[in-house]
Every structure is written in C-alpha cells, then in structure tokens.
C-alpha cells in the first residue's frame, strides 16, 4: 500500500529507544510504508511541532511516542480534525481516548511490580536492604517503575528501600551513584539488593560493585528493567539476576492495527499491551544476548 506514516520519536537517549526506532523503520520497510521520521530530542514542543508538520504534509497516519503524558489534547484534536489516525507507542497520554486510535505499549507500573515481585520471592523472609537507582527525575518511567516496585514490596516488612537516588538512566551516573551508595552503606555490606529503573544504570552499578570488591549477583542482587543485550551478558557472568523485558517492537502491532483500520475501519482495542516478561539467569542469557544483539540496541 502506498501509505505515508509520520513517526514522532522522543529522541535517541538510550539503546532501547534506538532499537525501537530501528525496528519501527524495519517494520515500515517490510510493509512498504513510507515512514517520515522526526526525532524530537527529548522535547515535547518538538513533538508537537512534528505532528503539526505531519498534518500539514497530509500523512495517512501518525505514530507518536509521547515524551510526557500531558499536553496532547490540542494537537491530537487537530489530527482528528484532519482525519489522521494516531497510534501511541510505548508511553501513554492522559487525553481522552477518542483522540487516538490505539496505544501500543507496556504498563510501566506493571514492569516495576514484576521486578519487585521477583525480588520478594528471591529473598523470601530474610531481611533485605534495597538501594534504588531511579530514572531521570520527573520522567514517567521513573515515577511509575518506582511506584510499581514499591507496590510489590509493600506488605513485606523485611524488604526496605534504604537509599534511592537518580542515575539519570545512564551507565555513568549509575556507576557514580552506586559508588556513593556503597560508601554510605558501610562499604556495601548493608546492601542486599539493587533495583535499577533500567539496565544501563544496572550495568554501571555492577562495575561499581565489582570495583568495591563485592560480587554483584550474589553479595548484592541486581534486578532491573528493559532487557537490553548487555544485561544478558552480565546475567551470563552471574553478575545480574533479573530483568523485565520492555519490547522495542511496538511498531509491529501498531502497523497491524493501522492496516486493519485503514482497510475497513476496524477499530482496535484502545490499549494493546505488550508483555512484560521476566528474564533470570536460568533463561539461557547467552542465546538471548546473541538474538538481541542485532536488533539495533
């Protein structure tokens, strides 16, 4: 089909997002869709500008990975006026749901919960002091993954978050902050587990733990979210324990829904949830690494 789709991506701030972009482009190519790609460099205003430009260009549909939940009403209304269907990718908006066709994504809070539940099960009823590496202060994954995790461990009084600081979703900050956690908690002897809002911070933190002379994965349990290839390497080495997958292939389901809608007006469900799959060391991390390596992470 000669279809033109505009894709407003948040940016390229992480390996995960780069993979999402790569997969979206691949999917579009496979289906013969002309994809107009706009990188917003983390700015909502750029995304709004991009969507407006898409409308001005008269694209057939728009994919939007919204950087925040709020503030989309007007521009989505404009798209609706112009009869261009919008599909949300991987994050949600708080606009009324008749302004977009559907949203494909995972439930961020659920991801945190899955991670928390794993940890609860893993430690049983031992006492466990947890340190938490948050994502960028104020970003929705940081807020929701924190909330989900806290929900999962609430009611288990043996689990306690003793320190929580932002690592900005990056390896460098993950490592730096973990170093200070280790110093502040008696050289790390008080810490039983690390929960990181993404794998990159966990990878950085693992190095810090190693450099402090402790063994990540056994002295300190490591659980994180995203399931990027490098965390599987760590798992294979026994340095990380678990990760929750956030699939970068959001575009596949999105294009499916669009195809169906544009062909005969089939309305998809309003939320197409992707699976938040938990991986642990027992899931053959080596082969998963090999498989994920080439997906553009």
């Amino acid at each position, binding site marked *: 089909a000669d279809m033109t789709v*505009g894709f407003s*991506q948040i*940016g*390229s701030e992480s390996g995960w997002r*780069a993979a999402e*972009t790569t997969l979206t482009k691949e999917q579009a190519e496979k289906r013969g869709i002309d*994809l*107009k*790609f*706009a*990188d917003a*460099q*983390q*700015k*909502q*205003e*750029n995304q*709004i*500008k*991009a969507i*407006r*430009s*898409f*409308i*001005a*260009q*008269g694209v057939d549909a728009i994919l939007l990975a919204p950087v*925040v*939940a*709020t*503030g*989309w*009403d*007007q521009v989505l209304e404009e798209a609706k006026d*112009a009869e261009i269907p919008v599909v949300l990718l991987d994050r949600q908006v*708080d606009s009324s749901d008749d302004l977009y066709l559907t949203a494909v994504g995972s439930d961020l809070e659920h991801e945190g919960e899955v991670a928390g539940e794993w940890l609860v099960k893993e430690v049983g009823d031992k006492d466990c002091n947890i340190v938490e590496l948050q994502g*960028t*202060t*104020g*970003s*929705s994954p940081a*807020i929701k993954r924190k909330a989900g995790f806290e929900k999962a461990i609430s009611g288990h009084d043996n689990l306690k978050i003793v320190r929580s600081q932002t690592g900005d979703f990056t390896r460098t900050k993950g490592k730096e902050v973990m170093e200070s956690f280790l110093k502040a908690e008696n050289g790390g002897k008080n810490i039983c587990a690390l929960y990181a809002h993404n794998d990159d911070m966990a990878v950085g933190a693992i190095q810090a733990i190693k450099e402090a002379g402790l063994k990540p994965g056994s002295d300190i349990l490591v659980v994180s979210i995203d399931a990027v290839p490098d965390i599987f390497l760590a798992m294979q080495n026994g340095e990380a324990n678990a990760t929750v997958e956030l699939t970068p292939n959001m575009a596949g389901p999105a294009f499916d829904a669009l195809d169906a809608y544009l062909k005969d007006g089939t309305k998809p469900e309003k939320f197409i949830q992707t699976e938040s799959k938990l991986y642990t060391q027992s899931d053959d991390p080596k082969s998963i690494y090999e498989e994920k390596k080439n997906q553009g992470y």
Partner: protein
Amino acid sequence: MTSSRLFSLATTFLIFILAYALCIAQFPNMLSTRVIGNLLTDNAFLGIAAVGMTFVILSGGIDLSIGSVIAFTGVFLAVAMGDWGVPPLLAIVLLLAITTVFGAVMGAMIHYLAMPPFIVTLAGMFFARGIAFLISIDSVPIKAGLYDTLHGLYFRMPGGGRLTFIGMAMLAVFLAGILIAHFTSFGRNVYAIGGNRQSAELMGVPIARTTVMIYALSSFLAGLAGIAFSLYTSAGYSLAAVGVELDAIAAVVIGGTLLTGGSGYVAGTLLGILIMGLIQTYIVFDGTLSSWWTKIVIGLLLFAFIALQRGLVWLSARRSGASAAIPA
C-alpha cells in the same frame, strides 16, 4: 551607521526568504497557511523568551535561566490552579510577580556582587528547575476554563492554518519589545550599558537600576513564555523546556545581535526565531533523517546561516571599504 545596521537586518530577512523559497521548491506543501501558522504558534513561547534574552544580550549579559523558569511556570500554574485551587488569573499574576522578582534578584547579584551573568543565571537555572521539582515531579495537566477560552481564540486562515492566541501574543510581545528597545530611556540605557559599562556609568546611566530591570524583564518574559508554553501543552512539567535558553541565544544571535552587547535589533530576533523554526520544519518535512543526522543537519544549517550572514556582511563592508585585518 544606522543604515549598515539595518543592512544586516535586511540581509537576515533576505536569507530567510531565500531559504523558505528553497524549502517550497522542494516541498510545495510548505507554502500553506498551516505551515505559516504553525511557525508562529510552535515558536511562540521561544519567541517571547527570546525577546527578554535580546535585552539581556544587548546589555552584554546572558540569561541561562529562562528554560528553567518556563518549566517552573508550568508546574507552578498547574499545581496552583489544580491542587491549591487558586483562581487562574490570580495564579498568573502571582506567577509573573514571582518570576519578575526572581530575575530582579539575579540582576541585583550581578550588579552588586559584580558576579558574571553567566554564572549567576546558571545557578538560577539550577534553582528554578530545582524548585519546580520540589513542587511536583509529575507532569500535571491544567484544566481551567481560562485556558479553554484562550485555546478557542484564533483566526482561521484560508487553507486551514490557524493564527492562534499565543502566536498573536508573541507578535504583540515583539512589538512591545521593539517599542521598549528603541523608544524608551530604558532601552537606550540597555544599549549604553552593552556598549561600554564604564562609559555608560560616567555618562550618568543608572547602571544598578537598569541591570536589575533587565534581568527582571527577562524573567518576566520567561514567565510569560512559560504561560504560553503551558497554554501550548495544557500542562506543567518540571522537565519541560530543557535547553530553551540555548535556542533563544541562537535565535538572538542569528537575528544579528552581538553577544558582546550594544548592537542588535529586537526585530532581528523574530527573524532568528523564524529561521530556526524553518530549519525544524524542513527536517520534519524531509522525514528521512535518522536521529543522529537530524542533529548534524541542524548544526550544519545553523552554521550555514551564520556563515552566510557573516559573508554578506563582510562583502558589504568590503564594498564600502571598511574591511579590517584587525577584528573590530
């Protein structure tokens, strides 16, 4: 000469028109009222903030805090109207008072403590965003009747484009800025301080008062820009508008204002804003650039515009026989 200053303004305008024509040649759709309307609406908040930045830069200073002030504004308004139940108009008045005082304090530190503006406003940048975080780290939707009313205020142009309220507000702010810069004593004093602070002082320009007013004005306009931004997104978010100060500085400089102060036009800044908006629009229309090429191309286009401008000004200076080996 005044005419040579106007010449560089005309040059910039010419470059803009030329660039727009080139864009249209490639994407005929870009000649729609939609695109023109979008250019104004999408850049409204940036434009309003850039007017303030123009005054600051004209005085030889710089204000790195405006992006953070915009973020603070959004969060403050959203939480004030939502959680604290402050009536919208009162919240706005309160907000503008806060940002103005914030700017005045920065200006006072710059003057009385003889601290460089770059650093004072850098601290201000950390501070304003920090306060925004303290108020709320969530993105908070704004639901106020006033906002809906203002959203409804627009002219529909033939061809589907909209001249929105914030777009018009930006133009109004530019008009006011031009008036202040060129037809008030305050404006003259700003240019004087930018030209040479010590001379200005020896000529009796009230340095202290003017400096404080300049930064107060900039923060006031940043607050106004924040309101425009919150209208634009109907929300307040502490991570919003990161790096807007750099965009504003770039727009001011592309508009022909010298960072060393004392020379430039508010109207030039409008051209700067439009040129930057055009670059963005062009990239989206093209739609084939990867994330990284997007950045590289923005950088290259920025370079092309500045180099072109320098080139034209240099050529004209050469023609009038005023070229110098010594950088003036």
